[in-house]
C-alpha cells in the first residue's frame, strides 16, 4: 500500500510543480508550490523520516512560502501584472529549455542505472531522537555554522529593509 501511495504523492508533486511554473498569477503559483511541498512531506513520512516531514511543513510550507506571499501582497501587483506575464511567457521559449532538460534527464538516468544491485528502501523509522543525537554529536559544527549563516541573513535582510523604510520617510 505504501508503494502506491508513493506513486500518487510523486505524481501530485510533479503535476503541481509543473503547474507552479506555468501560472500567470504569482499567488496561484505559490499555492501550487505549497501543494508540491506537502506531497514531498507525505513522501518523507512514507520513507520513515517523520521528523523531516514535519519540519518541511513547519518551516518550508509554513514560513518560507508565507514570506513569499507577504512580498507578493506587499507589492500588490494586480491584473496588469497577469497580462504582462502572459506576454512574457510565449510558447516559443519552451523549446531550448525542454531540450536541455531532456538531455540532462537522459544523462542522469544513465548515471543512475549504472549500479547492478537492487537498492530498496525498507521504511524503518528514523525518529527525532536519532536525528537529535546525530545533530548534536558528529554534526555539531554544521549546526553552529548554520546559526552563523542565519545571523548573517538576519542582518542582511534588516539592512535591505531599512533603506526602503528610510526612503519612504523621505517621500
Amino acid at each position, binding site marked *: 500500500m505504501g508503494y502506491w501511495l508513493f506513486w500518487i504523492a510523486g505524481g501530485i508533486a510533479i503535476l503541481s510543480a509543473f503547474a507552479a511554473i506555468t501560472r500567470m*498569477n504569482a*499567488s*496561484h503559483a505559490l*499555492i501550487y508550490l*505549497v501543494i508540491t511541498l506537502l506531497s514531498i512531506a507525505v513522501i518523507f513520512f512514507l520513507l520513515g523520516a*517523520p*521528523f523531516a*516531514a*514535519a*519540519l518541511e*511543513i*513547519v518551516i518550508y*510550507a*509554513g*514560513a518560507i512560502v*508565507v514570506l513569499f*506571499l*507577504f512580498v*507578493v*501582497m*506587499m507589492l*500588490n501587483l494586480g*491584473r496588469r501584472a497577469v497580462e504582462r506575464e502572459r506576454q512574457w511567457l510565449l510558447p516559443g521559449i519552451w523549446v531550448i529549455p525542454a531540450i536541455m532538460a531532456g538531455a540532462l534527464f537522459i544523462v542522469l538516468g544513465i548515471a543512475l542505472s549504472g549500479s547492478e544491485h537492487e537498492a530498496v528502501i525498507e521504511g524503518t*523509522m528514523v*525518529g*527525532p*531522537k536519532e536525528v537529535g543525537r546525530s545533530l548534536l554529536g558528529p554534526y555539531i559544527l554544521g549546526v553552529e555554522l548554520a546559526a552563523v549563516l542565519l545571523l548573517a541573513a538576519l542582518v542582511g535582510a534588516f539592512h535591505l529593509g531599512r533603506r526602503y523604510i528610510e526612503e519612504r520617510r523621505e517621500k
Partner: protein
Amino acid sequence: MFGVDWSYLLILPIVLGALVAALVLVWWERRVLGWFQDRLGPNRVGWFGVLQALADVIKLVTKDDWVPPFGDRILFILAPVIVAGAMLMSFVVVPLDAHLIIADTNIALLWFLAMSSLAVYGVLLAGLASNNKYALLGGLRSAAQMVTYEVFMGLSLLGVVMLSGSFSLKDVVEAQEEMWFCIPQFVGLVIFVIAGLAETHRLPFDLPEAEHELTAGFHTEYSGMKFGLIMAGEYLALILVSCLIVVLFFGGWLGPGFLPGFVWFGIKVVLVINFFILLRAAIPRPRYDQLMSLGWKILLPLSLLNILVSGAVVLWMAS
C-alpha cells in the same frame, strides 16, 4: 487485531464532537461574557438561549453567497476551508484517554505546529483575495502576528519535550504521573497560553480582525457560510489550544480513579476554555506594535531562558 487499526473508528466521533463543541461554544461564550460583563447574554432563542448557535447557522446559511467581483475567486473560496480544515486536522493527535487517540505518532507535537503553520495561509489568502485595502492590511498584520507567535509556541513546548523525552502526546501525559508539568514548567505554560491566544487571534490579540479596527480586518468581505466557516475555525482553534494545554501542562486524562480518564480530560478542558473566555472579558486590546514588541522583546528571551534552565535541570537530575 485482524490487521485493522481500531483507532480509525474514532475519527468520526472526534471530528463530529469537535464541531458540535464549537457550535455549543458559540452560545456558551456569549452567555459567559454576559455574566462577566453584568448583562444578559443570548436569551431569546430557546431555554436560556441554547438554540442561539442553531439560529446563527440558519441565518448564515440563508445569506447571499457572494464573491467580490474583482477579487480572486478560487482563493476567496479556498481561504475559509484552509482555516477550518487545518484546525480540524490537528485533532487527530489529541489524546482523550490512554487508548482514545486517533494517531499516536512519535511526532504529535510537531504535527500540531505544522497544522498551525498551515492555518496562516487561510488568513493570508483571505486578505489577498478580497480586493480590499482593509482586508489586505488586516491579513498581513494577522499573518505576521501568527507567524511570530508560532515561534514562541514551539519554543515553549521544548521544555515539556525535554521533561518527557518524547514528542508523542501520550508519552507526555504518561510522564506527568507524579507531578503535572504546570509546576516545573510554569514559565512555559504562561508563554504557551499567550502564544496560543495570539495564534487563534482571540482577544487580547485580535486587533487585525476586531470590528472597529480596520473594519473587521481580513474577513471584511466575507459573508454567509464562508464567514461561518472562519468563525467555526476560530472556535475549533480555541478548543484545540485548550486541549493541548490540558494535555501538556495539566496531566491530560490523569486524575483520581472514580471517574474515567476522558471525563477528567473534559472537565479540565472546560475549565481552560472558561479561563480563555474570562481573558476575553477582562483584558483590553494592545496596539499592534505593542503586541509585536511584547513578542520579540520579552517572550523570545524568556522562552530561550526557559529552555536553557529546563535543559540544565534535566541534565543535573540525570547525573
